[in-house]
């Protein structure tokens, strides 16, 4: 089972929920940071890093001696990462998505694969399970290809069995959808404030069409804005856990501690969250993913 922890905006406590769930998990679990623009799951889980590899993207390198400026590559590229104007060919590697289309279509074999570094993938172990994370190079904008490479490694690491919890990027943009698309269950973390509700609603709208079981975790519960509860009831979206608004928790969070470890009660909250997530993923037929 893969569960994705997402939120409509940053700062809702998504990462601490991910870390807490990983900590109370009842079997082998891989904690995955797919928030590649700002990975911070490691700050909570403090993993021992065992290996890392650069994440690269294959971009076109053109041999102008062979190029006839026929324009086939430019016509094909939907990202305008390669452009032909008269007797001139330009490439824009920072806009290239690495699809390889231009390499395949060039009739003169004038294009060869080059490498551009997007960032780094690292992996290791935490107290109770595995850890995997991607980090985008500073100033780099091309997160989906890096996320794909993290997910490829995730699948490798899961091949031997076990579950994974993904810390997804905040928001509802392409990277956020990318992060949740292969999961069996989506957890939406939110807080009961007007802003929180606004972004939560956008996230629900973006993810509902994926047809996956979803549940809500309300962080800082008790802040007083009730709209989230009404909305969840209307949409049949179960509220799986509520983490109270509490100074002790806020301080623990600020120091990078895992919320589930703050008190026995909170630990209980996450153990119960885990069993509800399992129920959501496998309604009525244990051992078989409902949305496989």
């Amino acid at each position: 089972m893969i569960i994705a922890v997402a939120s409509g905006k940053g700062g809702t406590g998504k990462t601490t929920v991910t870390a807490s769930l990983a900590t109370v998990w009842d079997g082998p679990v891989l904690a995955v940071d797919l928030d590649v623009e700002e990975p911070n799951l490691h700050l909570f889980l403090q993993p021992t890093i065992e290996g890392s590899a650069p994440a690269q993207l294959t971009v076109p390198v053109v041999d102008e001696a062979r190029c006839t400026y026929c324009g086939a590559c430019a016509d094909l590229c939907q990202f305008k990462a390669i452009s032909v104007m008269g007797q001139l060919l330009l490439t824009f590697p920072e806009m290239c998505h690495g699809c390889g289309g231009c390499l395949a279509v060039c009739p003169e074999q004038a294009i060869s694969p080059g490498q551009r570094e997007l960032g780094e993938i690292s992996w290791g172990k935490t107290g109770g399970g595995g850890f995997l994370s991607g980090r985008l190079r500073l100033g780099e904008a091309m997160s989906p290809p890096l996320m794909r490479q993290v997910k490829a490694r995730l699948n490798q690491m899961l091949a031997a069995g076990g579950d994974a919890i993904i810390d997804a990027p905040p928001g509802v943009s392409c990277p956020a959808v990318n992060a949740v698309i292969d999961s069996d269950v989506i957890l939406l973390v939110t807080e009961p404030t007007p802003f929180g509700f606004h972004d939560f609603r956008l996230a629900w709208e973006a993810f509902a069409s994926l047809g996956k079981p979803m549940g809500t975790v309300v962080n800082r519960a008790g802040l007083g804005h009730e709209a989230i509860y009404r909305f969840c009831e209307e949409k049949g979206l179960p509220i799986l856990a509520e983490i109270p608004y509490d100074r002790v928790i806020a301080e623990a969070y600020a120091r990078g501690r895992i919320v589930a470890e703050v008190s026995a009660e909170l630990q209980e909250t996450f153990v119960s969250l885990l069993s509800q997530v399992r129920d959501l993923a496998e309604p009525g037929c244990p051992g078989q993913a409902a949305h496989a």
Partner: protein
Amino acid sequence: MHKIAITSEGPSLDDQLDPRFGRAAGFVVVDLETMATQYLDNGQSQVMAQGAGIQATELIARAGVSCLLTGFVGPKAFKALAAVGIKVGQNLEGLTVRQAVERFQAGQVEMAQAANREAGR
């Protein structure tokens, strides 16, 4: 033959100069010898998720333009324009197309050495 392109909100010399380059509504192309004008619609670039500036560069390069008058140009479009040898006069927002052309002919438009806008869409 000396042609210049001006980003424009409409097809005529009296339309307002469009401050955007990649996502300009269109381009008025003026032949400075005959003062004949031609309009290039840029609607195709406006719907692109990325690369609008490059698409727009291709459009005006094919029209044989040697100079562009506009408001703002981003770094990727600037690279493309420089590569095809199109000079850029920027920061001309607020003028009509005709006023921009007159300023250019009076030698009052300095050619830019660098982009004047951050990368982005």
